[in-house]
C-alpha cells in the first residue's frame, strides 16, 4: 500500500508539472500590453507594427527599427524578409501593416483595394532604400575589372566562357587574365536584385540580352543558381572563376566590376547610385502619393552608376485599423528622415534619399498624407 502511494505521489507530481507548464502558457496569454489594438494615446505610441517583404531592405530595416524603437520604447516593429512578392501579397491581404518591395505595385494594382487599408483609401508608395548592385567575381589576383553591358550580357548568357576571352581583354588592357572558365552565378529565388540587373541589361544591351526584365532568372540559361544574397555571395567566394550580381553592401572581399557609362567607367558607390536615381524621372500616370522612380539606365554622365536598386515602402493613406495607421506613419516618417536615412547608409551602405532635392520632398509629402 505504501509502495502504491509513493507511485501515486510521483505520478501526481509529474502531471502537476505538465499542468503548471500549461497554466504558464495560458497565464502569459492574458498580457494586454501586446497587439496592434492597444494603439496610440496622447503623444506616446505603443503596440506592434508588423511588416515585411523585400529582403534587400533587411539591413536597413534593422537600422530603422533600432532607431525608431529607441525613440518609442513601447513600440515593437517587426519586418519579415520574405521577398517582395510575398510582401505585396500579404499587404494586399491584410497581413502586413506596411510592406517593403523592390518592385512597386503597378498603376492598375495600386488603384485596386487593399485589405490593410480603409475602403476607398489611396496607396502610399515611397522610395526608401537606394542601393547599388555590384557585379562581383572571384578571380585570383584580380580585384577590379572594367566591363560593359554587352560583355556582361554575353557572360551571363553563356556566350563568353573563358576569362581571357578577347572581348574581356579588350576592355582591360594590361590586366593579367587567366584562362579560367567563367561560372555565372544567379539567384534561384525571385528577386528584385535580378529584376534590376536584367532591366539594366535590357536597357543598355538590348541586342545582346534577348530576355525580359523579370524577378525570375531566365530558365533557359545555364550557370550556378544560389539562394538569396548570401547564397550568391558564398557561391562566388567558393568558386574560382565565378561572377554574379548582388547588393553592393555584401560584396566586400570579392572583386567588383566598374561599369562602362558613356565613355568612362564607374565603380559602385552610394553617391553614384543616388545620382542615377536623381537624374531619372518619376513614373508617369501615378497618383500623387504613389512616388515611383522610372530609372533611366542609359544615362551617359560620368558620375552615374546605372546598376542601382530602388526599394519601396508601401502604406495606406487611411488604414482600416487607425492604431496601425498612426504607428506606420510615425515609422515611415522616421525612415525618410535625415536621421533614418543616415542610419541606413552607415549600416547597409545605401544612398540617402534625403540627398535628392527632387525626391525627398515628394516622399515626405506622401508620408504626411497617411492619416
Amino acid at each position: 500500500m505504501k509502495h502504491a502511494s509513493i507511485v501515486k505521489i510521483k505520478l501526481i507530481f509529474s502531471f502537476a508539472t505538465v499542468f503548471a507548464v500549461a497554466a504558464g502558457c495560458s497565464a502569459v496569454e492574458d498580457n494586454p500590453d501586446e497587439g496592434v489594438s492597444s494603439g496610440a494615446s496622447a503623444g506616446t505610441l505603443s503596440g506592434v507594427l508588423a511588416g515585411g517583404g523585400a529582403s534587400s531592405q533587411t539591413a536597413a530595416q534593422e537600422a530603422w527599427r533600432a532607431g525608431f524603437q529607441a525613440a518609442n520604447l513601447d513600440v515593437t516593429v517587426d519586418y519579415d524578409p520574405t521577398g517582395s512578392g510575398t510582401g505585396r501579397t500579404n499587404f494586399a491581404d491584410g497581413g502586413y501593416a506596411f510592406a517593403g518591395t523592390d518592385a512597386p505595385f503597378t498603376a492598375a494594382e495600386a488603384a485596386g483595394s487593399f485589405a490593410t487599408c480603409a475602403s476607398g483609401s489611396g496607396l502610399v508608395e515611397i522610395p526608401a532604400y537606394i542601393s547599388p548592385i555590384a557585379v562581383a567575381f572571384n578571380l585570383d589576383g584580380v580585384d577590379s575589372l572594367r566591363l560593359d553591358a554587352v560583355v556582361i550580357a554575353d557572360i551571363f548568357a553563356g556566350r563568353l566562357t573563358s576569362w581571357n576571352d578577347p572581348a574581356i581583354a579588350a576592355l582591360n588592357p594590361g590586366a593579367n587574365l587567366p584562362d579560367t572558365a567563367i561560372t555565372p552565378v544567379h539567384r534561384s529565388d525571385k528577386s528584385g536584385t535580378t529584376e534590376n540587373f536584367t532591366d539594366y541589361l535590357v536597357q543598355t544591351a538590348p541586342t545582346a540580352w534577348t530576355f525580359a526584365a523579370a524577378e525570375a532568372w531566365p530558365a533557359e540559361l545555364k550557370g550556378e543558381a544560389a539562394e538569396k544574397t548570401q547564397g550568391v555571395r558564398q557561391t562566388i567566394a567558393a568558386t574560382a572563376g565565378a561572377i554574379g550580381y548582388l547588393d553592393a553592401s555584401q560584396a566586400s572581399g570579392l572583386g567588383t566590376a566598374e561599369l562602362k557609362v558613356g565613355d568612362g567607367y564607374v565603380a559602385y558607390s552610394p553617391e553614384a547610385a543616388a545620382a542615377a536615381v536623381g537624374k531619372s524621372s518619376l513614373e508617369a500616370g501615378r497618383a500623387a502619393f504613389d512616388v515611383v522612380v522610372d530609372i533611366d539606365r542609359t544615362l551617359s554622365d560620368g558620375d552615374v552608376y546605372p546598376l542601382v536598386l530602388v526599394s519601396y515602402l508601401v502604406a495606406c493613406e487611411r488604414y482600416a485599423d487607425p492604431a496601425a495607421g498612426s504607428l506606420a506613419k510615425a515609422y515611415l516618417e522616421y525612415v525618410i528622415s535625415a536621421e533614418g536615412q543616415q542610419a541606413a547608409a552607415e549600416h547597409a551602405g545605401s544612398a540617402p534619399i534625403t540627398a535628392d532635392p527632387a525626391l525627398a520632398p515628394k516622399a515626405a509629402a506622401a508620408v504626411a498624407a497617411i492619416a
Partner: protein
Amino acid sequence: MSTQAPAPDQMSLSTSALLPTPAAAPDQTSAPAFAFAQVAMSASSHVPAHAAASPGGRVFPALTGARPAWRRRFANRFAAIVAAAGCLAALIPLGFLLAAVVSRGAARFDLAFITQTMRGVIGAGGGALHAIVGTVFITAATICFSVPLGLAAAIYLVEYGRGKLARTVTFLVDVMTGIPSIVAGLFAYALLSLLLGPGVRSGLAGALALSLLMTPVVIRASEEMLRLVPDDLREAACALGVGKHRVITQVILPTALSGLVSAVMLGVARIVGETAPLLLVAGFTDSMNLNLADGRMATLPVYIYSQWQNKGLDAAAYDNRAWTAALLLIGFVLILNLLARLAGRLFAPGAKRHARAS
C-alpha cells in the same frame, strides 16, 4: 519474476521435457533467446542436457568440427575491428561538428548573449535571450499538446486497440512520422490563416506545427515502452480484481515511466531544432515576446537562420551570433537529455526499492 524467462509455452514445455530436473540446467537465465538455443541444440545433437548447458560447448561437433579455432578467432577479431571502425566513423563527423561549433561559438559566448535581446542592436553586440525564451515557451507548449495526445494514443494501441482501427491508427502514425517539417508548417499556416486572417504569426501556431511532428514520435516510442511492461504484471493486477483503468494508471504507467520520459525526450529532440515550420508561422522578432498567443516569437533555430541570412555590413558579428546560438541550441538539447536521464533514474521502478533498502 525476474529469475524466470517469460518464454512461450511450447518452448518451456520442451525444455522441461528434455531436462530431467530444473537443477540440471545451471545456466538457465532470463534471456529467452538463450533458452531457445539450448532447446534447439539439445534437440538436434541428442546429448545430455547438462552437457549442452556447460560453458564453452566443446561437445558440439557441428560447431567445432567444421571451423578450426584459428579461423574462429580471426573472424571474431575481424568483426570486432569492423564494429569499432564503424563506431569511429560515426563519431568523427560528430567530433568535427562539435569542435567547429564550440570554437566558432566561443567568440560571443558571454553573459550579454544570454541576458540581452536584439532590440535596438545594429551590427555587433546584442544577444539571444528572446530566442532562448521563445524556444523554451514553444517547446513547453508543444509538450502540452503532444504528450497527452501521444500518450493516450499509445495506451489505446497497446491496451485497447484491436483489429482494423488499431492497424489504421498505427499505419497513419507511421505515415505521419515521415511528414516533412515544412509541410507541417504550411498546414499550421494555412489553418490559422483561414481562422484568423492572413499573415498571422504566433508562438502558439509554431507549437501547433511542431506538435504535428512530435506527436507521432511520442506515440511510436511510448508504444514500445508500454509493450515492454510484462503481461504478468497486468494479469497479476487483474487477478487481484483491479479495474482496467487502475491497472493502466497505477501499474503500467508507473512501470514504464522512465521509458515514457525517454520517449518524450526523443520527441523534444526531434522538434527543438526545427526551423522551417517556425520560420513560417512563428516568424522572427528582435524583441522579447512573452505572449504565446499573439505576435511573432523568436526561436533559436530561426535566430541562427536569420543571423546568417540577413547580414549587415559588419558580417562577422552576425556570423558569430549565429554560431553561438548554435552552441546554445546543442547545449539546450544536452541539458534536456541529462534531465531526462535524471528523471528516468528517479522514476525507475527499481529506484525506490533500492532507496528503501539502503
